[in-house]
């Protein structure tokens, strides 16, 4: 790794007419980590990503990548997979990948070699000479991901990478993200589904209504939320209400997250549940990101 800070945002503002899309966001993304940009739809994640990619420019504040450089100057070292993506339908798959590699400054022969190799490795070898319009949706998604990686970027930014993927590609996406970290690269991805972030992220930032609500390493963020228990059960969830020592319950029907009061005794809580529903699992842990996010937003929402 030849840099220590992947991305740095300092009090960045972005306005579109009367709409304030990003309001004074500061972020620090250390090198070599998987960084999750979390928040509901419309929170400003895509705008932040586009500013990091120098597709948009901040109205105020500083955006820099790879140790303080201007993103426009180091575009070739960045990989970007937008949420809305597509391929040139009439181009051949191999040609298309070569073209994008060359746009990233890879020399022609090397670009061809890499396109071949990647297509082979991901089982699309026989598609090289076929037109993109012939690809199935899943294969198209794979090719888009390969395009993001073909120039071996130091920093990859994925906007909602899991949305719309089939289970096979979802696993592939996760493997790629983890492999990138093993290779010492940095991955930033945005998502509005907290569970995805919890599974892979080293660091997260929670964004809501254009503002940063919380950020830090995953464990820091989670431990800031107190204690909780996860309960897998069968039976009538209504019976779980008003348990002693439980401040709040997020019930999903078969699973419930119990947020414990500060002085609550987990054993007493468990005892109180016994007999009300059939318990399959009772797990003490930190609250979910979802819960933390809801709490943080509830407290910090000044809009």
């Amino acid at each position, binding site marked *: 790794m030849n840099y220590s800070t992947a991305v740095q945002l300092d009090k960045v503002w972005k*306005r579109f007419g009367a709409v304030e899309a990003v309001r004074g966001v500061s972020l620090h993304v250390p090198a070599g980590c998987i960084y999750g940009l979390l928040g509901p739809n419309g929170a400003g994640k895509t705008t932040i990503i586009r500013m990091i990619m120098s597709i*948009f420019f901040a109205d105020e504040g500083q955006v820099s990548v790879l140790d303080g450089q201007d993103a426009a100057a180091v575009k070739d070292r960045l990989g970007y997979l*937008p949420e809305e993506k597509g391929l040139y339908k009439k181009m051949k798959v191999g040609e298309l990948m070569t073209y994008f590699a060359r*746009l990233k400054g890879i020399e022609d022969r090397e670009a061809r070699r890499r396109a071949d190799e990647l297509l082979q490795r991901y089982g699309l070898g026989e598609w090289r000479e076929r037109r993109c319009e012939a690809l199935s949706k899943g294969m198209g998604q794979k090719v888009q991901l390969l395009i993001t990686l073909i120039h071996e970027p130091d920093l990859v930014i994925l906007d909602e990478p899991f949305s719309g993927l089939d289970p096979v590609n979802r696993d592939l996406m996760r493997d790629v993200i983890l492999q990138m970290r093993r290779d010492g690269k940095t991955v930033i991805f945005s998502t509005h589904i907290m569970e995805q972030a919890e599974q892979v992220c080293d660091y997260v930032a929670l964004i809501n209504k254009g503002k940063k609500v919380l950020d830090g390493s995953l464990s820091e963020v989670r431990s800031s939320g107190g204690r909780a228990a996860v309960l897998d059960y069968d039976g009538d969830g209504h019976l779980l209400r008003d348990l002693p020592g439980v401040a709040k319950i997020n019930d999903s029907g078969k699973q419930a997250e119990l947020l414990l009061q500060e002085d609550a005794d987990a054993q007493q809580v468990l005892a109180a549940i016994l007999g009300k529903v059939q318990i399959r699992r009772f797990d003490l842990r930190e609250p979910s990101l979802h819960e933390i996010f809801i709490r943080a937003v509830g407290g910090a929402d000044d809009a």
Partner: protein
Amino acid sequence: MRKIGLVAWREYMDNVRTKGFWIGILAFPLIIVLSATVPILLTKAKEARNYAVLDHSGFALAEVEKRILADDLGVVLEAAAQRYRDGSQAWDRLPSPVKAAGRVYVSIAEAERQALIAALAVVEADAYLADEVAVQVPELAAGLAEWWRQVSAEELDALDLELSRSRYARVAVPDVPDPQAALSQMVNDGELFAYFVIGADIVERDEGCKYVSLNLTDQDLRGWFARRVSQVVRARRIEREGIDLKVAGWLQESVLFKARKVDKRGSQVEISSVDTARQWAPMVFVYLLWVAIFTNSQALLTNTIEEKSTRVIEVLLSSVSPFELMAGKIAGMAASGLTVVGTWAICIGIGLAVVPGMLGGKDASFGGIIVDPLYLLSFLFYFLSGYLLYASLLVGIGSVCNSLKEAQNLMLPILIPLMLPLMAMVLVSQDPNGTFARVMSFIPLFTPFVMMNRAAGPPPLWEYLATTVLMVVSVYLAVRGAGKVFRIGILMTGKPPRLREIVRWMVLKEGVNPSEGEGV
């Protein structure tokens, strides 16, 4: 710059693979070849129109026949004279009676030629002819008459002349008690194209003269025949009133203004066919220019929208800046347009090398103009600048639209001005340095077409310079403006903005949210 080149190259290759590109390349030579050959083939294929004449006057038809012969002889002799002057091999191929008459025809004054033809066709006495010509007439006439009688239709076709004989064929009136009814029936059955009835008292008045036909659009035959009957009747009237033929001829003579032009030294010069071609060539160039500019900038708009609708755009923008993308696209399409136009130029070049031989050298004048650097260079410059201007406007529009349908509304204000130079083409050609043409030249949207159109003038140097400067500035502004619109518009989804809003983008520095209503 390297990235612009890559984008341009992809754009070019992408375009070369479309059908439209090859249609564009082939269409022009095809149109040229077709427009050169089809009318000839059609005329050759056109069957002679059958007509019949019911002559109640007793003399008119016979006289008219002589005049028809005179007209055809006139065409034959004029063609012979042309070949004699050109000294071409075509002269040698002419039959000897025609050559004999042709030699005499060339040797006499223009005024006498009509008289010679009239005399040869035995229409009138050889009143105007000089004695030494007149003595030759009987022998020449006999030779021609003999040739005319036995010459086959194929041989006449080979001469490639516009003869009445091959256009209209007279059919005899059937010998029945009611010939008019029979003729009407023949018209109905399609055996006759038309028939004429000549009134009995035609010298006095045209009562009873009729033209009967089912075809009301093709009036050629009617006019052609009526003109000749009028000539005959006029001759009769002159004769009856005892007016001297020379006096009558003089009375009927129209006044002819000979076309001359003035050269640089102020002396008068005859007008050659090159001059005529020079007047018309700009229009051909304007039309080509228009087609080339229109099709290429239109294609650019289409594929910008396609790029947007297939969502390739954002991936592209992570590698190139919006301006690089736009510049690359415009350059790639320009290259593809130049390829098409260049191919046309090569086609024209080859055509000019081959065709004049086929046409007997008389159409080479147009070639001289096409290779004229003034025309070629200005065509190239006006193509590039005009294309850049329209391409930036259309690429800007393409960038804010998500479908061609949306684009059509926004394009209207650009397409209408694009039509104007075509509509004004004839007007500008007629008066290349008139106020209208000059004003039009200074409107950048029209400059390329109108200045090309005026090339025959040609416009004064200062106008060339001024319009060129204006054009370059407008292209610069258009590309810059388009760059701003493109930057915002290209990521825009949903309803396209109003024109007013687009203009605001060009002026303001403020960011505009391209993905209104979507995840920001």
